[in-house]
């Protein structure tokens, strides 16, 4: 009889021990294995990263499309007709306007208050070429310095550095727009010169003259190729930074 009672009490103790073991392991599982939470965070981070990359690629494609569109429009189109929403006006050169390019390029700089498309991003004071002024005004920028901000969240040094930073980006973008236009013009001239060289060869032009012309074409080809590479680097550096 006693043995039976002892057995029963042992069984009860074992059951209790087993139950508390289950509870303990459940607590330990929730406390030390947050993988599921991490996984969902990781998933969210991956999604955000994907979206970010998508935006960057979109920006690159936009710049590429703008470039392609400019190429398709034809090189003799008047600059004044080119009223797209590019931040910096694109130039289209022909032989006459190319001779006067310095007058067109070196127009005065105008100080503007540049507003961002991004929400809650404080406007910055930058200088823009008067060629690019219209495009900036079209998206809401105003001429003159930005009004002084009353809240003191950022130091004066920070605000000054921020203005310098965006001003540098603007100067970079303007240089890219100008260099790209010269590149487009040079590519057209190269294609035409090659055709003309073939004509000269067929018309039995003296070999020395043809070789001299070939050297000129080759020099332009090499410089154009290098310019293309540097434009690529600059575009990658600047893309989406001043929106």
């Amino acid at each position, binding site marked *: 009889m006693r043995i039976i009672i002892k057995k029963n009490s042992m069984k009860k103790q074992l059951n209790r021990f087993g139950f508390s073991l289950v509870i303990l392991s459940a607590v330990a599982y929730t406390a030390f294995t947050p993988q599921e939470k991490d996984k969902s965070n990781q998933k969210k981070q991956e999604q955000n990263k994907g979206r970010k990359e998508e935006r960057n690629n979109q920006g690159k494609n936009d710049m590429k499309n703008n470039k392609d569109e400019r190429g398709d429009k034809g090189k003799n189109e008047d600059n004044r007709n080119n009223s797209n929403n590019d931040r910096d006006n694109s130039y289209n050169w022909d032989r006459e306007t190319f001779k006067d390019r310095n007058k067109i390029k070196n127009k005065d700089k105008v100080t503007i208050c540049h507003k961002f498309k991004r929400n809650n991003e404080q406007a910055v004071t930058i200088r823009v070429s008067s060629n690019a002024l219209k495009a900036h005004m079209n998206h809401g920028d105003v001429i003159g310095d930005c009004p002084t901000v009353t809240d003191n969240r950022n130091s004066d040094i920070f605000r000054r550095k921020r203005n310098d930073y965006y001003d540098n980006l603007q100067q970079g973008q303007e240089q890219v727009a100008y260099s790209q236009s010269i590149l487009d013009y040079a590519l057209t*001239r190269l294609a035409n010169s090659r055709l003309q060289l073939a004509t000269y060869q067929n018309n039995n032009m003296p070999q020395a003259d043809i070789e001299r012309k070939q050297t000129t074409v080759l020099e*332009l080809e090499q410089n154009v190729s*290098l*310019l293309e590479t540097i434009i690529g680097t600059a575009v990658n550096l600047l893309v989406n930074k001043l929106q």
Partner: protein
Amino acid sequence: MLVLVLTSSCSESKTNNQEKIEITTMDSTSKAVKVTTDKLDEQTQKVEKALEKLDKEFEDNN
């Protein structure tokens, strides 16, 4: 009171640090942009000179 002072001074130092990091990032990007812009300007001028030579060599309209 002490907690308030501690909290505000901590958040201020956090903002300062954040500002410093942002300034460093902006400075380095600015420098890279400036270097690339200068290179671009220099190379564009070379292309322009090569184009002028081409103009002289190919007098006809091409």
